[in-house]
């Protein structure tokens, strides 16, 4: 589904992502881990087209997508959420969700779009709130709305950038069930996450980054027991 080869991003002298290779198969749920500043979010931004890579190649669903603008990548069936929730507050809640439908490969607008948007809102637990404003939602509900916007087009692949950060234990359980539901429906998911409980429950496989390079890739249990990974997270003294 997704194949990343020698992905590199430099900001001036700083190398944020350095020669990263990995691939994600169809239907897989993969966790992308690493300490703060290790380049995970930059990788997400490179895949979604928010940033152009300095070097390297990204293939998605058989097509080369590095150098493509984000709106064309989105049309191929790749959706994402953002590290800090990003919504369009001048639109009603339902219209936030209709937006990607109206600009999909096969644009859907009007009654049909409203029906699908309401279904997506119901799926994330926001049933009946389509006519309200974004400002009426609390933080967790804004995160839900962002997910509804990402999944309404029924994308082939979903990128979640710390979507579960900042939730309390009850909310976290609900959020994990939601993601599990998406996984069971066959959606391919790549998620950046710091909450290990969620990673262990949702991702059979993990990729770990440190200082811009990939340091581990494999089954979650193996990877999390890897001394290199522990060293990257906790520093050398703990090994």
């Amino acid at each position: 589904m997704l194949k990343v080869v020698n992905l590199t991003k430099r900001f001036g002298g700083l190398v944020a992502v350095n020669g990263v290779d990995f691939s994600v198969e169809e239907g897989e749920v993969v966790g992308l881990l690493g300490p703060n500043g290790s380049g995970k979010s930059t990788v997400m931004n490179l895949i979604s087209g928010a940033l152009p890579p300095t070097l390297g190649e990204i293939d998605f669903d058989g097509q080369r997508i590095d150098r493509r603008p984000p709106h064309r990548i989105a049309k191929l069936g790749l959706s994402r959420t953002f590290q800090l929730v990003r919504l369009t507050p001048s639109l009603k809640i339902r219209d936030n969700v209709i937006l990607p439908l109206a600009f999909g490969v096969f644009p859907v607008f009007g009654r049909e779009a409203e029906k699908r948007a309401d279904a997506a809102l119901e799926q994330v637990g926001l049933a009946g709130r389509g006519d309200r404003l974004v400002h009426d939602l609390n933080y967790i509900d804004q995160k839900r709305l962002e997910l509804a916007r990402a999944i309404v087009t029924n994308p082939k692949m979903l990128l979640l950038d710390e979507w579960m950060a900042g939730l309390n234990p009850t909310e976290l359980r609900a959020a994990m069930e939601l993601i599990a539901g998406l996984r069971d429906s066959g959606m391919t998911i790549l998620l950046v996450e710091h909450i290990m409980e969620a990673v262990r429950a949702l991702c059979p496989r993990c990729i770990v980054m440190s200082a811009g390079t990939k340091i581990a890739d494999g089954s979650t249990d193996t990877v999390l027991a890897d001394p290199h990974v522990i060293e990257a997270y906790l520093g050398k003294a703990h090994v």
Partner: protein
Amino acid sequence: MSKQFGILAFVVLTAAMAALPFGIGEYGHGVLVGMMSYIVLASAWALFSGPTRYVSLATVAFFGIGAYTVAVLADHLPFGAILVVAGVIGLGVALLVGMATLRLAGVYFVIFSFGLAELVRQLITWFETSVTHTLGRYIFVEITTVQIYWLLLGLAVITLALRWWIEQSRLGLAVHAIGDDETVARHAGVNVTGVKLALFAVSSVLITLAGAIQAPRWTYVEPSIVFNPTISFITLVMALLGGPGRMWGPVAGAVPLYFLFEWIATRFPDQNAVILGLVFVAIVFLVPGGLLSLIDKWRARGSGEQSHA
């Protein structure tokens, strides 16, 4: 308000506006032309700048291109054909400027649009003095002031109808999303630069036509007359004061301010610039959010009280 009622009200209002010139004299006709011109300019400005929040100071560049096209072609083509040519030239300039600046952050666009009128004025002046040797031209077109007013009214109707259509269509979603967060719009599949370019082009063509339609009113035209930067800023103030985010906002700002600025210009012809400058400063300090936003605030407060009761 239902959709049918809205359309009916719009038709009745248009008919009433079309009937306005009957029973008033030539001076009144001139006033109506001026007012309708600013209704078009402010509404067309807001068509692009309202939702995208790009501050355009290029209004008079396109207005002047329209007027000057008429001045050059008046003796050679029928008026209708000149309007088409003017529109095409306006479109070409808008696309060129838009492609160079709309990919970038708003400040580049502001600075470029600020200088565009002067750039075009200098180019035309140079061309006229060194190539055609005719700086300043007389315009003789068989058209009455009332006919000009009706043409402008038609243009205003087109501008408002376009705005209404955009708000109804999926393009409306895209422009609001762009105004809020371009990154979100891009990741939702919106070709952000394309949408901005299209809106800027449409808005610019409408402004060009407004300048072209009015050109016969001047009889004598010179680049420094039709590229007067004050027009850009008056348009901006009108649209902002009325509220550029709403369809009727620019109209609500244009009508009262047109009469205010006319009054200042006739009452204080020598201190016009000083007073206009003070009015600008005063407006920013007195009405920060726009007239219609104030009305919305009152409405919100009213309904809030009702729900508490």
